[in-house]
């Protein structure tokens, strides 16, 4: 018994300790209320096409998807305005070539299709990153490239929303923009998630009823066995 207690105690202490070690590298992420309602997704899409798409692509999303996914539900006219002369079934690719990106930023900006799933914290990571630009207290990293949420704190992407030194009056607006982008990318990372949850509710109800019937059946069949 003593051994079991000891291993449990060690187990709990160590889970706490590993949490502390991770915290040293980057700041703990800000909490954000990700919402996949149409208004937020449309706003996020707007910020994405205006700002993010200057450098980043969505290789798994086509312009047509913006109409087909009912969660975003853009109409044909709005899609035509966004896509310009790109074909309707073309993927949402940035105009910045890899060679130009390497010259300007020293790296190729990552595709953002699954970014909201590929980082610990998911949507909260994107929100925190967009609102995480600060002045380097040690003064070594240039303003606009110092981000407290990025591993190593030096990020090639320079403050896309203009968070650094923003006016207090703009804070609410900037936070909302960051939240909308985080929500939009959360949707894009797994575009069937709302459909999945809707179907899931019916599956659960069906299975619970079915299992209840099985329970009744089991009780009836076993009624003549002493056990």
């Amino acid at each position, binding site marked *: *018994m003593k*051994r*079991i207690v000891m*291993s*449990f105690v*060690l*187990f709990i202490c*160590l*889970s706490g*300790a*590993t949490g502390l*070690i991770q915290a040293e590298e980057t700041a703990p992420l800000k909490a954000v209320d990700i919402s996949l309602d149409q208004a937020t997704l449309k706003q996020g899409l707007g910020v994405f096409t205006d700002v993010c798409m200057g450098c980043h*692509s969505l*290789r*798994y999303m086509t312009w047509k998807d913006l109409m087909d996914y009912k969660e975003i539900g853009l109409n044909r006219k709005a899609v035509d305005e966004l896509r310009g002369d790109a074909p309707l079934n073309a993927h949402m690719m940035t105009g910045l070539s*890899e060679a130009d990106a390497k010259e300007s930023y020293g790296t*190729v900006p*990552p*595709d953002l*299709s*699954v970014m909201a*799933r*590929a*980082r*610990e914290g*998911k949507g909260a990571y994107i929100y925190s990153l967009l609102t995480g630009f600060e002045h380097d207290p040690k003064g070594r990293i240039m303003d606009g490239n110092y981000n407290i949420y990025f591993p190593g704190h030096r990020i090639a992407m320079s403050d896309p929303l203009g968070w650094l030194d923003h006016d207090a009056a703009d804070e609410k607006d900037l936070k909302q923009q960051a939240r909308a982008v985080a929500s939009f990318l959360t949707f894009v*990372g*797994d*575009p*069937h998630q709302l459909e*999945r*949850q809707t*179907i*899931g*509710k019916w*599956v*659960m109800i069906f*299975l*619970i009823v*079915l*299992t209840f019937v*099985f*329970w009744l*059946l*089991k009780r009836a*069949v*076993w009624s003549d*066995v*002493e*056990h």
Partner: protein
Amino acid sequence: MIKKILDSSAAQWLDDRTHAVQYIRFHLIDYPTPKNLNYMYAFGSIALVVLILQVLSGLFLAMDYKAATLPTGNGFSLAFDSVERIMRDVNYGWLIRYMHAVGATTFFFVIYLHMARGLYYGSYKKPREFLWIMGVMILLIMQATVFFGYLLPWGQMSFWGATVITNIFGAVPVIGDWLLQLVRGGFSVGDPTLGRFFVLHFLTPLLLIVVVLWHVMALHVVHSNNPTGVETSKKNIIPFHPYYTVKDLLGIGVFLIIYSYFVFFNPTGNGLIIEVNNFNPANPMHTPGDISPVWYLTPWYEILRSVPNKLLGIVGMGFAYVCLFLLPWLDRSPVRSARYRPVYRMMLIVFFVAIGTLGYCGHHPVTPELTLVGRIASVFYFAFFFLLPFVHKFEKTKPLPEDV
């Protein structure tokens, strides 16, 4: 209705030529079962359901999956793209893929509970030794299958997990390097590796099905053990159908509720089912800070990691499996069930805690404290098997019941 079908002239015609009806009667209807089996005994049937789910979902995934590392721009590959295409563009592809991914984790969860039940009630003892050995073989085939399958999405954890595990072959003395290249099909994990892993991910489940069928057939020769571990008298035997068909159905129903909860509401299992880093495409130039296998492989991985020498670590891990195979002969007590064996019961609980601790340690980045805990847990793991041959000499077992 089932009786009607089996008695029909068509069924009789078939039975005269293939014994089909006799097989069904023997394995699914008349099979004599003790009446006191609890719900822990449902995990065998549940595992069979999971196996069928995995095979079917896997078949449909394979129709749209492309096993090629061909670059498609910005670090992505054809394999990674095809998985995302299944998730987005294939009709209900997301459902099939999540069923398969959640199913893999579930399979291990169910099998570990199934094995724990076997350990607790002494179901590995005479005359069921070979049943237990086949069970361990099934576990090994499953672990190989899941390892091959995890490479297929060609994400960061796929690539680096396969790199770490195939490195095991490189530790073999003298022929290590040659063997490593043979397994990978090149100097590093790459397109040839992906191709052969895809084929092997098809082959090993076929093998699995064969051994599972054999396992079930062997069970029906030696018959089920029961929670008391004593032989069942005639009057306490009931036929499998309808008693255990309906009882297992109830177990399967409860299982499906939990399974569907994960498929529909938490398909990545907070990183335990699909790891966060596996949504990044494989990048051979960028090693992740922390490479750990999925949770169901970590206890054995931690034993490997606990030994400072690479080759000895592999020997240690192999020995951990050998111990499982030898279990029926290591335990010499005439009493089966842990209900009547206080010392064995205590040892078993410590053993389960040790495996849980090993799994936890193997799933987290190496720290000096975790390494120490992992080593202590490894010692407890092996201590269980080393003590077993001697326990019956001093253990005072509780009086056994006459009948179940």
